[in-house]
């Protein structure tokens, strides 16, 4: 019955899709209209625990100061925020403001009622140039700004100091090459103790792919050709980057292969993984380990990393609500609020002016040991993933290739060539 029920629901959603329809398919420009009376805006976010507390505190301030624009928060799991939004759009009642992953943007861009912010962000009060560059790129699709940066993460090495001490190894440093990393991972591995040097997300999702991207970029490769019409990750640079990972996973057997991508924090926290490549969001899940944070190892001294930016999107529900929503988003992403939120949650500040504030950084580093390394690591973000409608399929092909090679099911070159062929098909069809 459970299966049956699901099937019915899925079909219903597909159908609702077929029969509803709003005419405005392009993003609407921000209206000048202001609400006549007090409005209550629906605000979707995916924050829990300390993040939610910090958000509630901010909302209390806003709601006390702005009786005319009341914000009503609703928790929506970030991983399914796009699906939830789709359902809400089919019902004709999107939230006024919603948190969305940057990677969802190409699909989101087609949503009816999504407010085009291109002109609004040029207003001086928003101070658009003050947002971290990678976050700005990620909120822009085909020259249209469709979101306001909400959060930015990046990848760095998180290592278990105790395991390094026990093995008599030196801690990672900012000069490390991937060869150094690989050697340390091998030295930390002990099959009898079920201990691994490194861990890798193996669910073939975007998480699998973005762990590989920095290696590809550091080595001089790229995901797509410059005109974004062909796959380029199967270049010699891309193969060499993947061989670093397969060398560890297949030859050294030094990697905890997290097939479901759900166990690594627990395993690291129980002292059985030496090094993770991850972002600051995992640090609160590692209370039992004395860990250190270091920037990524590099190829030939290139230590660039990758950013995962998320954003606030605004929907136009008429009656000046969009204008009110923008007022709130502007306030929420103001440096003052960003700083307060960062100190409460450990979120990396999304405003350059906050990141450059030395006094803030010191306080931040004391409150959240290691997070300051992530904050400074934002400067090592040089490239962004392609923002394309066909990207989900390109990503899926790459993810399967990486997993296949790391499981030893295929050779890196062959795996990436096959993925490139699939990616090229998807790019030619334009995601259709």
């Amino acid at each position, binding site marked *: 019955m459970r299966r049956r029920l699901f099937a019915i629901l*899925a079909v219903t959603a597909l159908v609702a899709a077929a029969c509803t329809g709003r005419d405005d398919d392009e993003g609407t420009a921000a209206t000048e209209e202001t609400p006549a009376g007090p409005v209550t805006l629906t605000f979707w976010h995916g924050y829990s625990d300390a993040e939610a507390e910090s958000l509630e505190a901010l909302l209390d301030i806003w709601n006390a100061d702005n009786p005319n624009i009341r914000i009503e928060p609703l928790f929506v799991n970030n991983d399914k925020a796009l699906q939830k939004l789709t359902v809400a759009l089919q019902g004709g009642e999107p939230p006024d403001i919603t948190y969305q992953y940057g990677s969802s943007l190409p699909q989101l861009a087609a949503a009816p009622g999504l407010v085009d912010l291109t002109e609004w962000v040029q207003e001086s009060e928003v101070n658009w140039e003050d947002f971290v560059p990678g976050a700005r790129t990620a909120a822009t699709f085909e020259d249209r700004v469709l979101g306001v940066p909400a959060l930015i993460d990046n990848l760095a090495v998180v290592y278990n100091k105790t395991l390094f001490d026990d093995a008599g190894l030196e801690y990672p440093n900012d000069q490390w090459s991937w060869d150094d990393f690989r050697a340390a991972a091998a030295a930390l591995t002990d099959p009898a103790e079920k201990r691994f040097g490194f861990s890798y997300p193996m669910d073939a999702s975007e998480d699998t792919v973005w762990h590989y991207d920095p290696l590809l970029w550091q080595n001089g490769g790229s995901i797509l050709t410059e005109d974004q019409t062909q796959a380029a990750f199967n270049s010699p640079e891309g193969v060499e980057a993947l061989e670093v990972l397969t060398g560890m996973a297949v030859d050294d057997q030094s990697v905890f292969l997290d097939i479901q991508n759900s166990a690594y924090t627990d395993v690291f926290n129980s002292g059985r993984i030496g090094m993770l490549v991850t972002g600051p969001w995992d640090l609160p899940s590692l209370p039992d380990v004395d860990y250190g944070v270091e920037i990524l190892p590099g190829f030939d001294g290139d230590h660039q990393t990758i950013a995962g930016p998320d954003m606030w999107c605004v929907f136009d529900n008429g009656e000046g609500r969009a204008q009110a929503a923008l007022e709130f988003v502007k306030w929420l992403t103001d440096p003052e609020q960003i700083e307060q939120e960062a100190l409460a949650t450990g979120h990396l500040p999304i405003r350059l002016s906050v990141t450059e504030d030395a006094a803030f950084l010191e306080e931040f580093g004391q409150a959240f040991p290691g997070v300051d390394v992530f904050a400074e690591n934002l400067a090592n973000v040089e490239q962004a993933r392609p923002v394309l409608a066909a990207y989900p399929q390109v990503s899926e092909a790459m993810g399967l290739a990486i997993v296949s090679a790391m499981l030893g099911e295929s050779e890196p070159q062959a795996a990436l060539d096959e993925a490139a062929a699939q990616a090229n098909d998807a790019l030619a069809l334009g995601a259709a």
Partner: protein
Amino acid sequence: MDRFRRFLVSDHAAGWAFILPSVILIVVFGLIPIVWGLVLSFQKAGLISPEREWVGFENYTRIVSDPKARQAAVNTITYTVLFVPTSIMAALFVAHALNRKIAFIRFYRLAVFIPVVTSTIATGIMFLWLFDKNFGLANWLLGKIGLGPFGFFEDPDQAMIALVLMTIWGWLGFDTIIYLAALQGVPHELIEAAAIDGASRWSTFWRVTWPMLGPATLLLVVWSTISALQLFDEVFFVTKGGPLGRTSVLVFYVYRLAFEQGLGALSLAGYAAAIAYVLFLVILVLTLAQFWLGRRVVHYQS
């Protein structure tokens, strides 16, 4: 007008009034979606956007040349072929074992049925832990008798088997209850007559009891086949179609296309609907065939 009044006081009207709530639900959540799904399958569409484009049978012809659809179809068939006979045979065995008067029999029956009412998520978490390659109880126990370690969900060649085992465990109780009821409906005089005629217990079971279970077996075969072809929850939650797409079944693939990858304008929702429709037709034909075959071989007690 006269006819209408006659209708109102007839049994027909009362009948319709009683079933109206279900009819509305079936129409709204069943019939209308079925029709609109069909419409969608001839369109190029993404669920987030209202844009639609008619493409005729393009979505259907595309299925043939899609390697991932083929992989999902093969996985779905593999799963069904493994799941249906194994789960039914296991249920028959368990039902037979529970069809006797021994101490604590209610407890045993309850224990067998509990997994059916346990949420799939709970079952999934438990099996992820049990079948964990490095730290799972299953590998620890098997290690004690010198087997393994097995990768289970983490090994591309074992994930499907692990999935079958997990779902059999989850669904065994349902099949068992059906068989248990059917076993208790087998007339005792038939068994007695067979015993008097000198039949062994083995041949009594296969010559008398098993034919009498025909209607229950037919029901379970049809029901399990439909459920197996529509497998989704366990894949969505436990394996996510992996590793390497080895457990990606059709409904899961449809979900990924329609709700994860193809939400954008003029994207993959229509194609996903086409796959869903092909699956619907396959299930329809299979079910009709099973009933047709069932009528010829199943013995209904008069």
